[in-house]
């Protein structure tokens, strides 16, 4: 990616991450749409021999042989039997029966996680710079499990089965399904097995935001990653005939519009279809849009598809308006015609002009790439939100990472819009989603793992979470793009990832397999559920009273049941730094909830573990049912801050 390394501080801390073999012995497995091996992001110059523990392979298939692998791309497998059992044989004129990426998504995520350094990267000149993955020296193994027909759990499970046997260290899954109990969700089941083998599993949180309770991949042994913006934008403003201008964004590059203002029409008034405002295929009347700029509303079909529809109907350009669902969040696209995306408010104002002006005109002014955008990061409106609908006491998402307008490697089988009509071919593309933020964390986890090979997946995740930030350098709280107001732990989890701080977190909340099994006892799993999820017989201790909030998780999901006004959690901290004394400080945003920590001070020797309890006392639930309150607990020795978010639900 370009810009993200700078945004995350990786450029200043290159020496902090070991360049030694440990950095290049970490292997990231990416389950996605495969890989475009010729991408420069998989160049292996400067990398040593393939790690000795590697057991994977470079499978041969259509347009792919073992020669396509190297010391960067050390493994490539594909799993299509499940998809074909469900949908019949893949169409080999459209898809490669091999690890080759015909979609672009898999190349984008794999190169984000661990792409080699590539200078002179850009998309049509946008986001230009030196592209690099989060862990430039980590190795990549791709497992193609997603096809045009979708990603099927039997294929995903087969890939996880193989990745475990191949000895990957991190698994990156930018995909998700519906909500299902952990023992019925095959990503959660496979992730549990991977975790037992010391593999950190990082998953995308989903793009169903800003709806509450919209998360995917919420199992506590999975790292669940939401999306935030960067300090980079691609402004393309709308200049109306009445002299007013409205901000927009675009990645369009191509023949310019005439300098003079152009006639402007609302799609809803240029169509006989009831949903004509959405610029769906076949709904625009060519005689009403030819030679004009068309205002379309988002919804129902892909943003770039709308541009293609306008172009096919003879339109010269498009202004694409957000609706209430996307608010003011602007996602840039490499449209096939001059087009820009505007927020909901701007869209409403532009429509007002369109409906009141006798001869409305417009110009779109493209301004290229702008950096230093503030405030940033902002939680992406599309980023799925908590609470965790399966176990509300496990606060999710875990954290957010860059996921809006991310440049990374792309397939040469498809254009930057992914549309069949798009004949352009690019080395890098800019796309958005929690699919993009997940591999950021996957790569950063690999960096942490390379610096601390002995850490468990839970310790690596704890380090990434407890050092994440929730305020800007100005002290203002992180903002939510969906509301324009401060975001909450249900939006950003522990906050935005800060890899430099995560390298040296001071204390971690560690978790063992047995801790997770105790958690499942608290969920009253039957012996059969244990066997399904954990592939072992496990007898919960009948004399013990298990509680989900007992899980040593680096965040607190407090649920006041009816009648209960005091909730107590215990946690154990492990010192992974030098001996030191840490003091607790706790904040509660709700005056009706008192939070106390006992003891207030913990002194650690090196590698020592110490426990504490935290008690939440509610003097009465707020009027609104299912209300949420928030707070934060920090342990600090003056050098390290070990922060954990608190969400409180009545």
């Amino acid at each position, binding site marked *: 990616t370009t810009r993200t390394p700078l945004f995350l501080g990786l450029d200043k801390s290159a020496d902090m991450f070991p360049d030694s073999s440990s950095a290049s012995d970490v292997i990231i497995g990416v389950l996605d749409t495969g890989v475009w091996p010729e991408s420069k992001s998989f160049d292996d110059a400067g990398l040593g021999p393939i790690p000795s523990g590697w057991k994977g392979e470079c499978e041969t298939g259509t347009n792919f042989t073992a020669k396509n692998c190297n010391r960067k791309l050390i493994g490539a497998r594909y799993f299509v039997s499940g998809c074909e059992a469900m949908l019949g044989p893949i169409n080999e004129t459209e898809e490669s029966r091999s690890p080759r990426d015909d979609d672009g998504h898999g190349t984008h995520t794999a190169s984000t996680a661990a792409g080699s350094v590539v200078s002179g990267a850009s998309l049509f000149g946008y986001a230009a710079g030196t592209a690099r993955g989060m862990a430039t020296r980590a190795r990549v193994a791709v497992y193609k499990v997603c096809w045009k027909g979708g990603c099927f759990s*039997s294929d995903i499970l087969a890939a996880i089965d193989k990745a475990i046997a191949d000895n990957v260290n991190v698994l990156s899954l930018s995909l998700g399904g519906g909500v299902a109990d952990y023992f019925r969700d095959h990503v959660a089941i496979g992730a549990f097995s991977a975790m037992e083998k010391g593999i950190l599993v990082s998953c995308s949180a989903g793009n169903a935001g800003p709806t509450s309770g919209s998360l995917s991949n919420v199992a506590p042994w999975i790292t669940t990653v939401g999306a935030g913006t960067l300090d980079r934008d691609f402004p393309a403003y709308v200049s109306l005939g009445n002299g007013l201008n409205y901000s927009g964004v675009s990645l369009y590059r191509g023949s310019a519009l005439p300098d003079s203002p152009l006639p402007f029409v609302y799609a809803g008034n240029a169509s006989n279809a009831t949903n004509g405002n959405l610029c769906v295929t076949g709904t625009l009347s060519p005689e009403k849009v030819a030679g004009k700029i068309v205002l379309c509303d988002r919804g129902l079909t892909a943003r770039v598809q709308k541009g293609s529809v306008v172009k096919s109907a003879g339109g010269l350009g498009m202004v694409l308006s957000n609706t209430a669902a996307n608010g003011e969040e602007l996602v840039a696209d490499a449209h096939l015609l001059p087009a820009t995306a505007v927020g909901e408010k701007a869209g409403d104002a532009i429509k007002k002009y369109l409906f009141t002006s006798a001869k409305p005109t417009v110009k779109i002014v493209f301004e290229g790439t702008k950096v230093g955008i503030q405030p940033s990061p902002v939680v992406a409106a599309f980023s799925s939100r908590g609470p965790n609908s399966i176990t509300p006491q496990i606060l999710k998402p875990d954290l957010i990472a860059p996921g809006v307008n991310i440049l990374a490697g792309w397939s040469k089988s498809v254009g930057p819009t992914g549309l069949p009509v798009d004949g352009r071919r690019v080395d890098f593309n800019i796309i958005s989603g929690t699919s993009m933020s997940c591999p950021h964390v996957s790569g950063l986890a690999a960096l942490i793992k390379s610096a601390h090979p002995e850490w468990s997946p839970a310790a690596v995740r704890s380090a990434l979470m407890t050092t994440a930030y929730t305020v800007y350098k100005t002290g203002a709280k992180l903002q939510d793009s969906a509301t324009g107001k401060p975001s909450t732990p249900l939006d950003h989890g522990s906050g935005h990832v800060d890899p430099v701080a995560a390298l040296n977190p001071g204390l971690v909340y560690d978790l063992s397999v047995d801790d997770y099994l105790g958690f499942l006892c608290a969920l009253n799993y039957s012996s059969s559920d244990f066997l399904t999820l954990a592939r072992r017989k496990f007898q919960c201790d009948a004399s013990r009273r298990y509680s989900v909030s007992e899980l040593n998780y680096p965040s607190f999901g407090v649920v006041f049941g009816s009648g209960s006004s005091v909730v107590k959690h215990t946690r154990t901290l492990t010192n992974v730094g030098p001996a030191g004394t840490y003091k607790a400080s706790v904040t509660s945003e709700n005056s009706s909830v008192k939070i106390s920590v006992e003891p207030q001070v913990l002194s650690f020797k090196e590698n020592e573990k110490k426990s504490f309890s935290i008690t939440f006392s509610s003097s009465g639930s707020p009027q609104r049912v299912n209300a949420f309150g928030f707070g934060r607990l920090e342990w600090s020795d003056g050098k390290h801050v070990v922060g954990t978010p608190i969400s409180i639900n009545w």
Partner: protein
Amino acid sequence: AEPERTTYIVHVAKSEMPEAFEHHTVWYQSSLKSVSDSAEMIYTYDNAIHGYATRLTAEEARLLETQEGILAVLPEARYELH
């Protein structure tokens, strides 16, 4: 009309493999054949889970789930890229 088949993931308690079988995949095959003459194994799993994937009718899936050592017969799910 041929009853509809769908893909199921069969979770097996590997430790409960009957003595009569040399290898668990032979056991899997035998258990599958006992509910369906035509069903084939799409995948066998040994690390992520213990079990296999196959295509069954709803009735065959129900019958299979009653067998000794079968923990769960879960329908396949489709996941989406984010």
